[in-house]
């Protein structure tokens, strides 16, 4: 028996040590950048020559931050499809921005300028190839630790400022006119939602923009960034237990902490929790699944898009019990027109 248990115990200990090592190193990417220890300079930040305001700007700018499975800003085909549908379904002109990798303060993808870029790429490839490798979960672990960095008051301001700086650049590059009052919706899936809240105050201050957050099954701490958020739309299915992790882990999310940032926002009517119907956090049957249908025949993907559009447009969220038939403004109808 011990011939199995002893090596197993060593393996578990080794895995734990590896995880602790990864977690210990997690804050140093953003801290090193901030301190000027890396080649990636803190300056220049926002250059006026980069300003390129659109003559005819969009009614809203939506920034999408991917979930913790990503290794770069290159989205998966299902995420890309989701954003395409969202753009098609939106009744007004919308600009969607998806070129910032939220798990790096310097927008440096895991397969970018890093000593272990080759390793991350191989792990990612093995996952895409359908190989169920336990090592591929290292990507989740690495990005999860960056979410923890974002939610930690000791590191969060620096990390979130770094990501916000990249978002500001991208927004300006995409024609966002600063101080125009045009709303920016930062939309994050899973851990991306925490970073969405973290960057909110810096986007608000730098661009003078009202900030809305769309959290898709988001795992969000009691982040001070909530104070600067105009409204948080927290889309959480009743069968998705992952967002409850933050309710458990962060004392500011506990019901007894009535004066936390979270509950101040909730009591001020700035948080709406929306149940889109039975959807899983990730994988088959998740929020972006186009093949899983709800009771009314609508796909999870379309329902998620419908809920987000209604929330951002401040129109009533359509009841799930109603029979779903594509309308003139629905994604299917718009796509068939084109």
């Amino acid at each position: 028996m011990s011939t199995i248990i002893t090596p197993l115990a060593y393996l578990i200990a080794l895995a734990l040590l590896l995880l602790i090592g990864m977690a210990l190193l997690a804050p140093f990417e953003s801290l090193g950048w901030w301190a000027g220890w890396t080649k990636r300079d803190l300056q220049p930040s926002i250059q006026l020559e980069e300003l390129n305001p659109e003559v005819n700007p969009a009614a809203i700018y939506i920034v999408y931050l991917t979930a913790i499975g990503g290794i770069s800003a290159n989205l998966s085909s299902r995420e890309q499809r989701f954003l395409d549908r969202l753009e098609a379904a939106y009744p007004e002109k919308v600009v969607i921005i998806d070129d910032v990798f939220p798990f790096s303060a310097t927008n440096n993808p895991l397969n970018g300028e890093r000593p272990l870029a080759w390793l991350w790429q191989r792990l990612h490839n093995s996952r895409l190839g359908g190989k169920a490798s336990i090592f591929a979960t290292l990507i989740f672990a690495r990005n999860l630790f960056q979410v923890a960095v974002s939610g930690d008051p000791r590191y969060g301001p620096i990390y979130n400022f770094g990501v916000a700086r990249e978002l500001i650049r991208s927004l300006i590059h995409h024609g966002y006119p600063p101080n125009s009052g045009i709303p920016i919706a930062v939309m994050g899936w899973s851990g991306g939602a925490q970073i969405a809240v973290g960057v909110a105050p810096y986007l608000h201050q730098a661009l003078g923009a009202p900030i809305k957050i769309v959290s898709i099954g988001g795992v969000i701490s009691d982040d001070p960034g909530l104070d600067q958020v105009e409204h948080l739309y927290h889309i959480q299915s009743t069968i998705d237990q992952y967002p409850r992790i933050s309710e458990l882990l962060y004392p500011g999310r506990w019901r007894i902490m009535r004066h936390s940032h979270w509950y101040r926002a909730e009591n001020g009517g700035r948080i709406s929790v929306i149940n889109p119907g039975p959807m899983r956090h990730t994988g088959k049957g998740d929020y972006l699944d186009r093949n899983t249908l709800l009771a009314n025949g609508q796909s999870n993907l379309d329902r998620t898009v419908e809920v987000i559009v209604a929330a951002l447009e401040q129109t009533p969220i359509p009841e799930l019990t109603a029979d779903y038939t594509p309308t003139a403004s629905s994604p299917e109808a718009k796509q068939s027109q084109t």
Partner: protein
Amino acid sequence: MESVTNFLGLVKELIVGVLRLDPAVFEAILDSSVAGIVLDLIILFLAGLSDTIGHSAVFFANRVPRRRFLFALVVEALGFVTGVFIWAFSIWLLAGFLFNAQQNYANVVRTVSLGYAPLLFGFLILLPYLGNIIFVILRVWVLLAVLVAVSVDYNFGFWPAFTCSVLGWALITFLARLPFLRVDRIDSFLWRFSTGVDQELNSKEAVDQLMRELQSDWTGESDQ
């Protein structure tokens, strides 16, 4: 080679004993030779260094240059050791004053220093999220170890040891806040000396300061 192994084994026993809050370890250190004192101080310094590493985000937030980082860590760790000596002094003073109990000050320093062994894990405070909890756990652990140390020093029960330790800490905190003692100036001097940076800011203050600078730059250039 064997003597090195024996020495390391002894160190391990000592540290494990403190972590277990075993009074016998503190009694042993009281009876030990000069080498024991050196070992004691080395443990205290390493605990201070580890704790400083755990809090090293502040050096990054204030953009301490890479070449200065190690120096800053060592100076802060030495400041930490000095703080422990001061706490030991206040305990020694209160034990004599409140309970008329006598002990050599050096012995109090030795046992209290050893009580800081849990902070050898202080580097774990770096962990995002969990580090905040580990910080509290380690501080409570140190307090318990110091209580055992003081009870061994003076053959005290729990409450006299608790009174001397907590009141001693409160006394230092109170004195440090008296304006005429200018402890804040000493702190500032040590910070400047170790880091070469004028003002100590936490990460939020540092980012807020940069945001203000960026906004004023932006506004200024826009007006031109």
